């Protein structure tokens, strides 16, 4: 189970993802953004950070990096692609996921613990969770307010493509639990085929009790397990 972690010059969470995959039993390797091949990887992670500084719009420039053609093709063939935080922004800009991530409603960078509700467990990303389980993990971003037009949102809901929603301790997706103004408290979505996921919070920072949470570990275990069982192309 080789899992490629795409590194841009401004990636900051590449090592966090590396360790997460290792802890989940997979074998991670880095792929530099200027490369053009995924070198036979079984899954791809686009990690957090500030890919190319992101002064214009997060992810806007990253999608032109040479490796992104390979990532896009891999996703179109049904390969598992995960974008976390900046990775989510990159996948939206690249058109692999619908919608966009706008400036947080507070206009500030926000870095704190958040809670997520698992919306479904029949996905390659969430099979390790219980239905409606409430997860705790850090989030850390300035542009995480998920936006899509009404039509797109309706499709996302109808096709059950929202995997994670911000919620309170009781699992209610309330306005108070929404950290950034995301429509419908959306924290993570998948594409129509269900093989490409983007999420703003950081499961990669919730993998050890000593860091305050292990709720991110099942996420990586789900992916490693699914790829190992070849559930996905």
């Amino acid at each position, binding site marked *: 189970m080789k899992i490629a972690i795409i590194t841009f010059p401004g990636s900051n*969470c590449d090592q966090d993802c590396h360790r997460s995959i290792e802890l989940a039993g997979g074998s991670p390797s880095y792929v530099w953004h200027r490369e053009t091949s995924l070198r036979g990887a079984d899954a791809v992670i686009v990690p957090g950070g*500030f890919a190319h500084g992101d002064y214009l719009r997060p992810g806007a420039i990253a999608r032109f990096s040479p490796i992104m053609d390979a990532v896009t093709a891999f996703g179109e063939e049904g390969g598992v692609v995960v974008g976390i935080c900046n990775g989510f922004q990159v996948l939206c800009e690249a058109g692999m996921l619908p919608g966009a991530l706008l400036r947080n409603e507070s206009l500030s960078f926000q870095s704190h613990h958040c809670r997520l509700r698992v919306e479904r467990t029949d996905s390659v990303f969430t099979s390790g969770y219980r239905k409606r389980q409430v997860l705790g993990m850090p989030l850390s971003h300035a542009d995480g307010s998920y936006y899509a037009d009404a039509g797109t949102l309706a499709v996302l809901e109808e096709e059950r493509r929202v995997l994670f929603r911000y919620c309170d301790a009781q699992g209610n997706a309330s306005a108070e639990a929404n950290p950034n103004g995301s429509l419908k408290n959306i924290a993570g979505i998948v594409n129509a085929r269900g093989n490409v996921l983007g999420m703003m919070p950081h499961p990669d920072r919730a993998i050890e009790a000593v860091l305050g949470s292990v709720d991110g570990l099942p996420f990586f275990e789900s992916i490693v397990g699914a790829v190992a069982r070849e559930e996905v192309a």
Partner: protein
Amino acid sequence: MMAGHAPGNGRAPGAGNPRSPATLEAPHPRPGDPAITPELVEDHGLSPDEYAQIRRIMGRQPTFTELGVFSAMWSEHCGYKNSKRLLRLLPTQAPWVIQGPGENAGVIDVGGGHALAFKIESHNHPSAVEPYQGAATGIGGILRDVFTMGARPVATLNSLHFGDLDRPRVRYLFGGVVKGIGDYGNCVGIPSAGGEVYFDRGYEDNPIVNAMCLGLMRTDDLIRGTAEGVGNTLMAVGARTGRDGIHGATFASEELSEGDDEASRPQVQVGDPFTEKLLLEASLELIASGHIVGIQDMGAAGLTSSGVEMAGRSGTGVEMDVALVPVREAGMTPYEILLSESQERMLVVAEAGKEDAVREILEKWELEAETIGSVTATGSFRVLEDGVAVADIPALPLTEGCPTYERQGEEGDEVRALRQMDIAAHTDPPAGLEDAFLRVVGSPNVASKQWVYEQYDTTVRANSIERPGGDAGVIRIPGTKRGVAASTDCNGRHTYLNPRAGAMGAVAEAARNVACTGAVPMAITNCLNFGSPLKPHIQHQFREAVLGMRDACAFLETPVTGGNVSFYNETDGKAVYPTPVIGMVGVIDDVETVVRHAFRDPGDPILLLGSNTGELGGSEYLYVLHGLVAGEPPPVDLAAERALQRCILTMAQLRLLKSAHDVASGGLAATLAECCLGRPRTGRSVGAAVNFADPLPDTALLFGEDHGRAVITCAPEDADRLLLHAENYGVPCARIGTVTEPGAPLEIETPSSRLRLEAETLRKRYYGVIPDIMNQAG
């Protein structure tokens, strides 16, 4: 003052050959350079005596360019002329110190083959002019100081002091500074591990913005900022040189005065954190490659100080041609290129013949690298423009020859009166004890800094064991069980009233914060923020603070490995409180044993280590309830302080502690409230029932800021063991209460009063006050 540029200022690469025979010629004034007049010398911050000394060193009149170089190198910022003699008194040695003062950052051995590089820097003046960029570039500079040592930055901290938050200007500065620190550090991907924020009218016009960075490396990866090996190549790396910040080093060494905003504009430096990130990765890769022998940030006084200091440290000379330096704007003069403080630039000394290999690494990181000169054996700092000499100065006198002064100091009358004031007459709470309690806990100085640290990425790199919000930050050394801890502290009111006791207190508090997490305090870096050293009362403050720091560091065995002096923090003659900020670092062997500040389980006994003496001098209570900054600040009993810290460390190592929290600003009231409230968002708050028997007035007991104390809890069955350990260390220890249920109130009983503070009321005060003030418009 800036001269227009001369014609023929060619920029073609290779236009000048730094090794051509023409370089032997002495520099002539450039066409268009202003004449050297006494006024021009004064404008450069040099006294007539200093200028005479320059003439002696040069054996002739300096050129305009040379005058600029001297001015920068002999500024307070680079030359430490008013502080050097006193700073020599500080203890700098210990077996674990690998690099003491004098380098870009200090380095200590933290065990397991790892070394910790750390340093603190001020960016006060730039932040007063443009808070966002000023603070951002402060973070940028301190990161470069650390990664040029070969260490990967793993955390930043900051120490911020502002005027009272009810002023719109202060809110603007505070908001801008916090955003600037956050945006820069977040983009580079360095977690914030902590800091402090104080608000007091003593900082009304001059905010103090200090940034600290910690970096980790293998002990054998250390590299120093030297220019060794004659014939090696000087390369300018990173961002292009623009006209920003010209004369920043001199500017940082002068008072601000009314209307400076306008004049200071061209000096605003804009930060580019993405370029910094590239520079960080490229530098570490360069150092690992072995192709370079030295590297240094072009910080204050840019190319000048980096070139001169690198030559100075290795006893060589350097020669460079400014026409080869990549510039952002056309027509820059040598003077401007040498003194520009454009950010995100480095000077690299590459081994001769390895230039292409160096360039290749930089190219991967999309950075420019230009050969601009070479290391020489001449011992001089020689600068050409298109092959024509414009400056040639012996390097050593520029660094070591900077005149140093120790002026006569004397305590100011005003402070003496305040210090000697009988504060006993002002200790009664005007509207009762409960009101006082809530006002102290709800004072912006004591209240949660959540609004600040949630704008900083605190979890990136997944090694943040203890994040901001507790006593000290703790960062795991990647791939190990070990951790490093750090805290920044300085109570400016204490140092104002008594600089010696205040500085000792800052060291003691910083060490205590580190010890409360279970980490052993190891060493400090410091940032000394003062007014004009030319004034006797400031000179007195400075001397006293240095002596207090010396005594505390020597006794607590936490040597000084470096720091920064920032003088002239004055506006219209009014200086800030003397603010010697201490950045303490420590080491913990196993991060699983980290102790946190919050109470945990109902039924746990609460114990107080140390004794209550009820020191209200310079307290938050007096300021908030009586508007006073007066009285003798709490004295520090170093022996008691050391015993307390060792005692806590032993208890932590034995895993007997369920929580530990030191007592500082706001006294026991603040500490107990924080222990009950725990962390925002994740933590649950609990109640407590506490009972004091001390025969002290209620306000002195609850709000006194006596040093040498900590509030700890343990499992019920361990209480007796804790008491025994405390006795062994000679530390007074009393059981003062019990943790109660979540949602229960904090109940406190003293010999004369009973207080009941509802959890929700405390929570609102503690977490609400800063966001409420900042979210109000204007």
